[in-house]
């Protein structure tokens, strides 16, 4: 078996969540890697939408930024930023939104805004970008983030985007349906609480629990993910030869 890094593990498992033919709103970094890997493996008919305004991108190289010129050349369509958010996302045309975030709460709220107090922040993060609306309006969302206790608090310091809870019922999207970490995969239970549903090879429930800021439950049918295949890894590494994301 080829050795692989935690970020490779996350990217491969995130790619596997994407079913062919879907319309995916792609975020920068690992989501971008995951979507491009899926496009090159089991999901050649994904429509990749980038918030910068590109629809049906076919990037020849992995873009560092989600506004890279390689996303435009050969794309199916380009639209302005208002249209991307209004006509595609708010209108309900996006099947899957891919998100990251500095903090993910027990019920899937995301914080991408500040650590500490908003008015006098300890750490100022970049802010919402598209997160607030993607989490609300994409039919479902996937989140990729390393499994660390500080990243999985019981409550977020700032609710940049909504996970599960009463306000979710009024929204068209079902919210975060999977969180892919370097230890496993979490999904919401019926109450909206994220529970561990799968462990990656070599990871343990105890390790996941120790790295989560609430008493992490595991699903009764806790699964094991298949290790990345040699094919998946080769394609992934070809996408990020300088290992900008595959740290």
């Amino acid at each position, binding site marked *: 078996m080829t050795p692989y890094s935690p970020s490779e593990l996350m990217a491969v498992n995130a790619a596997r969540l994407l079913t062919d033919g879907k319309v995916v709103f792609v975020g920068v970094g690992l989501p971008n890697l995951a979507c491009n890997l899926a496009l090159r493996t089991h999901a050649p008919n994904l429509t990749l939408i980038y*918030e910068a305004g590109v629809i049906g991108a076919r990037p020849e190289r992995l873009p560092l*930024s*989600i*506004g890279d010129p390689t996303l435009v050349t050969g794309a199916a369509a380009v639209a302005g*930023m208002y249209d991307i958010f209004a006509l595609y996302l708010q209108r309900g045309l996006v099947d899957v939104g891919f998100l990251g975030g500095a903090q993910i709460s027990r019920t899937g709220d995301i914080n991408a805004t500040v650590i500490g107090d908003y008015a006098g922040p300890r750490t100022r993060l970049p*802010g*919402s970008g598209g997160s607030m609306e993607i989490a609300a309006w994409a039919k479902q969302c996937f989140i990729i983030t390393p499994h660390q206790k500080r990243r999985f608090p019981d409550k977020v310091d700032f609710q940049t985007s909504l996970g599960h809870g009463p306000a979710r019922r009024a929204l068209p999207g079902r919210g975060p349906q999977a969180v892919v970490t370097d230890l496993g995969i979490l999904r919401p239970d019926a109450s909206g609480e994220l529970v561990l549903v799968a462990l990656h090879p070599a990871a343990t429930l105890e390790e996941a629990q120790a790295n989560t800021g609430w008493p992490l439950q595991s699903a009764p049918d806790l699964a094991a993910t298949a290790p990345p295949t040699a094919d998946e890894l080769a394609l992934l590494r070809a996408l990020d030869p300088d290992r900008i994301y595959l740290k």
Partner: protein
Amino acid sequence: MSKLSTLPAAIAAHVHDGDTLYLAGFTHLIPFAAAHEIIRQRRKDLTLARATPDIIYDQMAAAGCARKIIFSYMGNPGVGSLHVLRRLVESGALEWEEYSHFGMITRLAAAAAGLPFLPMRPTGASDLANVNPAYRRIPDPYGGEDVVVLPALHPDVAILHVQRADENGNAHLWGILGEQKEAAFAARRVILTAEEIVSEDVIRRDPNRTLIPGLVVSAVCHVPHAAHPSYAQGYYDRDNAFYLEWDALSQDEARLQEWLDQWVYALPDRAAYWDKLGPEVHARLTPSPRPSGEVDYGGYA
């Protein structure tokens, strides 16, 4: 009526201390040359609005031009933090006002349309609305769910870099369009920098490619390579190496000031900047050709 101008003259005429600026371009066509000229002319107390402040506003803030920032994603796209802006915000030395991307573009779209506000559907995430009183909720007069609204944002000046324009300011853009159109129609004054100034005929051969009509433009300046380290689709690539380099550079105050000295203050204009980058960088950023193909508009005489 020609609106051709030099960039220094256009900045001197249209950008004043205390103005609200929107230097447009979502990753693409970011008007760095104009920002550097604003720095050289030592404008102060500016309110800098941009969905993604990007390195351009990090540089302007480092040079002391900014009083306030209005943004929706204050990161170095694909890299990490914008360290200058982050330090200034964390230390309380810079005012800020924050939206989501959709909120930001909605404010511009409202202004561009001459409307006092535009609605958005609720997102269920309430913290941003709690800290920013511009977010309001109003009832749907047709009995549906409440909507969230934001007020129009009218910058004093929008600055856009475009691939080509005629001397009247009619401009062709292609590639990522971001909020270029909305910013131009929202603003009170509009400055264009252009990779190429072309004859009116080149523009009028493909009127559907004209995103910015000359009638909203105050000045148009011929400034090739004005978007580096961002890019101009078909002209040069995004300089990802510089975006990565800025991450380290911008965390070191001495290096930052040295960079500003060498790359902004010491240089007269963008031609000197591009020259200073050198032939290896020029070569690295040169794309291969990918022509669009043509369409036929037909002659109807």
